[in-house]
């Protein structure tokens, strides 16, 4: 087997992550997830499979939920990314974050960042979803702990509260 060519020249990438401008020189082979976790220092999005199968790495790219493990960092050039860290803060949780806690929808927490991103994106486009719509919207986010009911109920409860689900930050 021939050795792989690894010496790929870095390219400049500029994007905003949770409203903060980030400029990096990054190899074009690297994923958006790895840029977010390393250069941008936002480790909330997780790597569970590196193959778009588990959803733990989900972030909003210009408001749309994507698996950041399967996006190249260069594809995010000039665009805006929101990770779980951008949804709320410990002293100012989003309605969804608060509801997830109150419904017991957090166990090991590894799927939680991606789950919150999917649910936030859903409520931004479908403010009053049915249970089926919630379950379909979360079907790309694997959770091995909860059985999903507490998570689904948290999303439904948030949808029922006016103003609890602001549009995701651009």
């Amino acid at each position, binding site marked *: 087997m021939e050795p792989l060519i690894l010496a790929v020249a870095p390219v400049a990438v500029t994007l905003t992550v949770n409203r903060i401008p980030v400029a990096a020189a990054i190899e074009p082979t690297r994923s958006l997830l790895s840029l977010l976790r390393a250069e941008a220092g936002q480790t909330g999005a*997780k790597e569970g*499979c590196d193959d778009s199968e588990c959803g733990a790495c989900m972030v909003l790219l210009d408001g749309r939920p994507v698996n950041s493990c399967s996006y190249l960092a260069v594809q995010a050039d000039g665009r805006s990314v929101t990770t779980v860290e951008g949804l709320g803060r410990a002293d100012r949780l989003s309605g969804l974050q608060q509801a997830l*806690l109150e419904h017991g929808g957090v166990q*090991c*927490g590894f*799927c939680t960042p991606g789950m919150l991103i999917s649910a936030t994106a859903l409520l931004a486009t479908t403010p009053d979803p049915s249970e089926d719509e919630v379950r*379909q919207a*979360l079907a790309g986010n694997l959770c*091995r*702990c909860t059985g999903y009911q507490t998570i689904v109920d948290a999303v439904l409860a948030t949808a029922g509260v006016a103003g609890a689900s602001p549009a995701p930050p651009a």
Partner: protein
Amino acid sequence: MATQEQAQPEAIRPDGVEKVTGAARYVADLARPGLLHGRLLLAGVAHARLLGIDTTAARALPGVLAVVTQDDVPDVRYGAFVQDRTLFARGTIRFEGEVVAAVAAVSAEIAEAACLLIRVELEELAPLLDPEAALVDGAPLVHPGWESYEAGPTVVRRGNDCAAMTSVKGDVEGGFAEADIVVRERYATDMTHAAPIEPHLALAEWQGDAVTVWSSTQAPFGARAGVARTLQLAESKVRVVVPTLGGGFGGKCDFHFEAHAAVLARAAGRPVLLQLSRRQEFLATDKTRHPIAIDLETGVRNDGTITARRARIVLDGGAYTSDSLYSTELALMTAAGPYRIPNFHATSHTAYTTRTPAGSVRAPGGPQLCWAVEQHTDVLAERVGLDPVEFRRRNLVTDGDTGPTGQLFRNPAAVECLERAVALAGWGDDGGAARLPDGEALGVACSWWPSVPAPSGAYVKLNADGSGTIITGAQENGSGAVMALPLLAARELGMQPGQFSVLHQDTAAGPWDMGSQGSQTTINNGRAVVAAAAEVREQLLALASDLLDVAPADLELAAGVVRAKDAPSRSVVIAALAARAHGGELLLGSGSGTPPPLPEHDLSACSGRGFFGAFGSPSFTCHISRVRVDRETGVARVLEHTAVHDYGFVVNPAGARGQVEGGSLQGIGLALSEGTSYGPDGRQLNPQLLDYKLQTAADAPRFRVAFVEGSLAEGTPHGMKGVGEPPVVPPAGAVGNAIARATGARVRRLPMTPERVWAAANGIAADAATASTDSVAEA
């Protein structure tokens, strides 16, 4: 008896805010100066002689700082029961996930590229994939030299059988002679995986001759012992820390890849983060759930009384024993189920094969056996013309009955769980047949499981401001088991749970603990925390007694104060006592408590038994599943799932409900979608989440959960029982019975995929592998 419904106020877990904001740090989130990335090279073939490894090209790749093989580590074997493993392959490849070498490089991409540059010279051998063939006398041995391996005292070595056991009660031949009907059936299950969403990771850093490993382990002390043994270090030179664990479900118990990371870090002279890919999670971890072949033969009288059961259980243990003896013995106990069976004879064998090793996954052996036994139970009911619920009512254990090894049941809640589930699920007189649409049916399953007694320890201290710290060796796997400890300390000290922080999952801090396995954390470490808090309580009482001039016996702790029982206004706040004590008295307690002994039992007619001779404070369970089957496609879907558990005292109802819902869905995954397929070359065909299908939110049913208090456990705080494992045991049985009631056909291979359901409903074998095990003989 008291029942606890879902209406309890939901407690927010102490680690919740950091988890919903992305602030929680898992192993992959840690940064160290000079951190390198480690990757493993796996064998890629199931069985081979290893003739040579050439790492020259890998070492020459710029950015590679270390390449290690078995030549770089001490020549010692390890293993939970049989010391049958080495860190890296030595001489023989026994499964495709065998670690051949490890690489550390400045980037993950370079480490992966270097793995591809390692030349491995192999002479392939025929894979050994059929456990029955492996058990035949004269079969080629997976471990030809294993007579010389060290092994635990209960291990019986015979050919490829590394865990032979029997369970014998009464006179089974006599029992069959009393029967009017005897039913014989065979069931078989595929390999499944724990599949936590966080993979295995280990970050190792040396300082002098001591190493710290931040690991995604469920058992930090087991991991420490593994590193110490395989690298020949004192345990005091090894520190294992778990920052936050992204799930485990048994797959991260024991010792895995911490030593590989440590060896890489030592060789490179820099810290190394070793991470397994999702594919390697399927191939290389040594804790898959055993594939099991299950033969059951049960005699019943026409009135539905069970007179005798014979069982033969063959577990596929894979290439290494791991902790298979737990699974084997728990499978034996589950073969009896929570039923009154006066005459019982069960044998189990665990075969070495050349598959990925199996071990303890959440409720080891339980779901497979329960699935078979509960379907078998419905067949028995049908043969004697009884409703499945009525048949169970007549045979579930009640007060004064004895278990398969003679343990005496006092007020077991088995029937109570059944009645409650039947009421909640609307079973009625006809199993819901009249009200459910065509293609839908209910299925019922009952089970039992132990509350595992184990030693544990904890410290509790009060700080100068009156806040508290619990220091424990216990491991939080995400279930909330450790998160429940402040509730127990607070109850003991009349304080609020939120006043306590917990320092845990660090071998340098807390006392030894067996880890997050066996549903044991809250009950055993809880006992230790209560004992430690009781010492602090005595210290507070002594201080308050001096101050208030009231005898300690006349004082109580409540609502943050110490007060006179008969004059509550004579009181002092605990924070004031802590401030007074600061710098002088220590408000520090340590405790372990004494694990309760197993109930009295009799193993004199049994062999090979070791750890689960009886079930300590067993919990009983009944699940009822409502399933819809599409006859055209064979697709089965669970629409609603009712789960009733006897957990004794439930300290954290929200946490317990989360365990029941999540465990039930894992059980439903086992029932319908999770299973590893193997090719004839001994390699897994679906080592990825796209083809190994976990249940999603869109697949999952709604859950209805209820707890009955049943009989309180002995030797646990307030009588609580083990919570985490029991919910995964009965769902597959309930789903299987529902499928059979909906279609009139029984599926005897797990998972019950659409192909298998469709094939059973149409009376044909789904595939060659299924054909050999789906045949059923009824006498």
